[in-house]
């Protein structure tokens, strides 16, 4: 199988995720976009694992192991992220990212 397919899939997911992160107003939607980006990274890791294994063999399964770690970290991130969103909502009564501009000049 040509290696380019999963890699392109990952690139597509990542770019779409970036678009979502930049353009969405709702914080929950931003979080979802982040999930997309993480998924893209995981796809890339798994694909790379296979590419490396094909070329020189990889007894440690580095890519897959890392993919698993990223999965775990992604789950943790969603948990904390949603907690922050909840807090944001509680303090401001909405979850619009561009209303959270306390850092403005």
């Amino acid at each position: 199988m040509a290696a380019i397919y999963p890699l392109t899939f990952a690139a597509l997911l990542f770019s779409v995720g970036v678009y979502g992160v930049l353009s969405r107003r709702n914080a929950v939607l931003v979080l979802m976009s982040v999930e997309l980006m993480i998924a893209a990274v995981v796809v890339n890791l798994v694909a790379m694992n296979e590419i490396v294994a094909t070329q020189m063999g990889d007894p440690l399964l580095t890519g897959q192991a890392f993919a698993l770690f990223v999965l775990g970290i992604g789950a943790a991130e969603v948990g904390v992220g949603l907690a922050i969103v909840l807090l944001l909502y509680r303090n401001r009564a909405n979850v619009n990212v561009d209303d959270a501009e306390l850092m403005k000049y």
Partner: protein
Amino acid sequence: MIAELSWLIPAVPAVSAALIFLIGKRLPRHGAEIGITAMAATLVLAIAVAAQVWRANVGVTIDPEGGGGAFLLERAVTLAPLGEDIAVQLGMRVDGLAAMMFVLVALVSLMVHIYSVGYMHGDARYTYYFGLLSLFSFSMLLLVIASDLLVLLVGWELVGVCSFLLIGFWWERKEIQDASMKAFLTTKFGDVGLVVAVVALGGATGSFAIGDILEAVEAGEVSHGLLTFALIAMILGVVGKSAQFPLHTWLPDAMAGPTPVSALIHAATMVTAGGFLVARLYPAFHESAAATGTLAVIGAITLITAGLLALVQSDVKKVLAYSTISQLGYMIAGLAFSYVAGVFHLFTHGFFKALLFLGAGSLIHAAGSNHMEAMGGLRRFMPITFWTFLLGSLALIAVPPFAGFWSKDEVLVSALDAGGYTGILVFALGGVGGLITAFYMTRVLYLVFAGQYRGHGQPHESPASMTFPMIVLAVAAVGIGWVNLPVEAVQARAFSSWVMYDLGYWVEHPVEFHPFLALMATVLALAGVLGAWAIYRTYPERDPMYHLGIVSHVLERRYYLDDLYTDLISRTAVRDLMGPAAAWTNDAVLDGVVAGAGRGAMGLGRRLYRTGDQKGLEGVVNGLGVSALWSAARVRLAQSGNVQLYAGAMFVGVVVLAVAFAVGGN
């Protein structure tokens, strides 16, 4: 060797001061007992040390050819190394001069302690007062015993601050605050000179130890110019501390403090520190004719101007204050010509002037006022005070055979022997000064003790705690002059050889007794007494203002000066400076310069602060700040607070960088 224990002499009052401050309030006599016990112990020690020094000094055979042989004990521990090969040493230098000062300080201080028990009775800050007295005694004795100029400077400044605190003892009142400030700052002005002198002598000789400095100076290791500079600078310190013309203005104001303090600090001990310092460095001073000449001129001017001022005082303490200044002038002038003359006058004056101040305190205590207008006729009410005061006055007037006669006579004789312009000047002015002294003291005696009582209180004799010290000091005032009779047998066995730093000295400079001169001086003094008697014996019966209108030339001057003086009290003196009295004008002008310098410095400081500091330097700094603000206002627009915009920018950066790496990498 009891002299080895001399360090106890300042140590005992130091411990006493600490104890009084710490636990004095809880004791039955509120700390007074500690101070008196300590000073009594100090006096015993001082006498023992003095006796040993005396035995050592009179025991040696005097060799007319060479000097040396005088008792000198130097012990020092290094207090701290300062530089490569210079250190400050905590040590003692006990010789005749120091032993003499021990006795003088310890005795007068003990008397003042005892006297204060009665005088300060019931004061709110009684314990604090005794603590300060002990602290002062310690400081003065430290100054005396110091073997190192820096330690001497420590004592010098400490007595200054004790004086400041004691003058300002009743600090609630503005004029008392001002007086204490004036005293401290005027002497501090002199201290600038002293500090420069100490630094210069230390820098030139590589040591601050007095012994090393004297050795180096006598060996000619210090260049003449530098030595003269250092000594003149030191004379500035002497002038400030010993209230010499033109820095004498603080001493009369210092009378605002409690009277026993005036007796101790402003008559017997602290103000003589200047004379002591000159005596301490006497060999160095005599290497420089310019320095001794300056001393002589300053002393002569002081003794006559201050004596004239004393004529016109109505406050009994101020008469004594001006008299002190005048007598200090004799001392300083005497030191310019003869070691023994100056030191001897310092010694005798300490006793009889302390006595006079204690007497004045007793009078004030009884009459409730400082002013002689409110006294009169007190002889009947206060016999002990009268007799002791009379004896003190006779000593001051220099009536033979009282103490002052012998010492003042030596000053005049040594001046005449030295000759030269300065010698003649001191001799002539000193003679006239004797007349003036006699006049004003007689005036005080008449105004206070003769005639009818003019005050409003109920005058009464002071308690025993006050009269006892006066009696002791009166004995001294009568007899102390005999220790240095101008007879060779006495000279070799008594004061002269006792205080000598070099036994050969007075062999080379024998003090001669000129019967004719002594007679002249006595006649002058009696003339002063008679003049005053002629004027004042009728004072109480006549209207003072009317009386003032018909007096002789000298008293005519007094009239204007007295006017000025009253205005000075009421702080409107400036206008009356136009008055014809030269002495007063000088005094007021100099006083104005001191005050004006202070005010000018204040104004300069304010102006410097307003224009230089707040506008000039600040402006530059603020300008930088403003320009930073201006650019910041533009840059900050990028900080919209929109997180997503930031993230977008980040990704743009990532893309650009990745492209750059991808392209550049190939």
